[in-house]
């Protein structure tokens, strides 16, 4: 929670709150989600169905918000090409497509539909978010984006989505390890801290050499 407060404070201090509104919205919502989960945890206990519903539905909501945050960054990258509207349209289609696909898969399951849907949608959106961030990163390189803040925020998102999608995949492959249980809180802190450091370290005018961004230069 401290990491979230730190990021929002840094955004306000540096006057970047509205410039990165959806990133801030995600962090603020995650703060409220943490508070809500804590309240339900204390009232009903960790094994209660109420806590399970609260956890997975807030997680699903947060993933959708993060997905919107990725789109907001993509809109900024594509703004100069006047493609922002198309990017948003494709993103909405992708979101609805993922929700539809998840519903179709879950509807065949014998488990409780409402719970399973939130869990599956969340996991699928992490992977779709990862693919989207990967494509966004490709666009950043192709369009020779030089804005340091934007570049580092996209990279932080890429690291976050990769680690989350990987931990969920590992959980599905080897459930006995419960890796996501330990990775999730660490990653929850990582995103707001890395964004906050980016905002504090670089001004909006800071620029990078695009050639230095490619992992392996060609």
């Amino acid at each position, binding site marked *: 929670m401290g990491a979230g407060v730190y990021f929002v404070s840094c955004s306000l201090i540096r006057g970047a709150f509205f410039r990165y509104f959806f990133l801030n919205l995600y962090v603020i919502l995650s703060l409220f989600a943490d508070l809500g989960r804590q309240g339900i945890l204390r009232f009903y206990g960790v094994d209660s169905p109420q806590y399970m519903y609260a956890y997975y539905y807030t997680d699903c909501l947060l993933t959708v918000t993060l997905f919107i945050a990725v789109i907001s960054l993509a809109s900024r990258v594509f703004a100069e090409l006047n493609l922002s509207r198309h990017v948003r349209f494709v993103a909405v289609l992708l979101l609805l497509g993922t929700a539809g696909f998840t519903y179709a898969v879950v509807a065949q399951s014998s488990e409780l539909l409402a719970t399973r849907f939130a869990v599956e949608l969340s996991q699928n959106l992490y992977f779709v978010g990862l693919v989207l961030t990967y494509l966004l990163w490709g666009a950043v390189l192709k369009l020779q984006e030089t804005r340091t803040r934007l570049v580092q925020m996209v990279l932080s998102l890429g690291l976050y989505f*990769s*680690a989350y999608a990987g931990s969920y995949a590992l959980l599905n492959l080897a459930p006995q390890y419960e890796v996501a249980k330990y990775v999730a809180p660490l990653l929850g802190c990582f995103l707001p801290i890395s964004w906050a450091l980016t905002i504090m370290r670089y001004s909006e005018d800071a620029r*990078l050499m695009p050639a230095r*961004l490619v992992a392996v230069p060609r």
Partner: protein
Amino acid sequence: MMAAFILAFSLLTLLMFFVSYCRSLTASSLHTSITEDVRDVTGIQVRAAGRDYARVVQILQLCPDRAEDRSGLKIVAAYYSFLNLLDQGFAKLFPAVRPWAEEERASCAHFAAVALGRRIALNREMLAQQVEL
């Protein structure tokens, strides 16, 4: 099968984003040249080489800490360790990786040397303030 594919894809992208993130950090210091003070202390002649990194970090630890540099230095230290691992393991199979890894280690050393320059400047400021008092 699907989970295995997602795991492999996630690990690959994790590695790619980690390398790019670290490169974006070191790139931000490339337009700053190494100060004369740092050259004197570290013995770096024209430009930093990968082997200078350990010496620069040792001297960095002797200077008063700057909170602004702390996280960046930790990430670059992790990146440097990763490059060393790559050089000792992967580069034996693919020797073409070695020059790239050396170039990257040199940019890690440059990043640390620029941070050292800032710390020396801070040290001087603090000393000047103490003299004034």
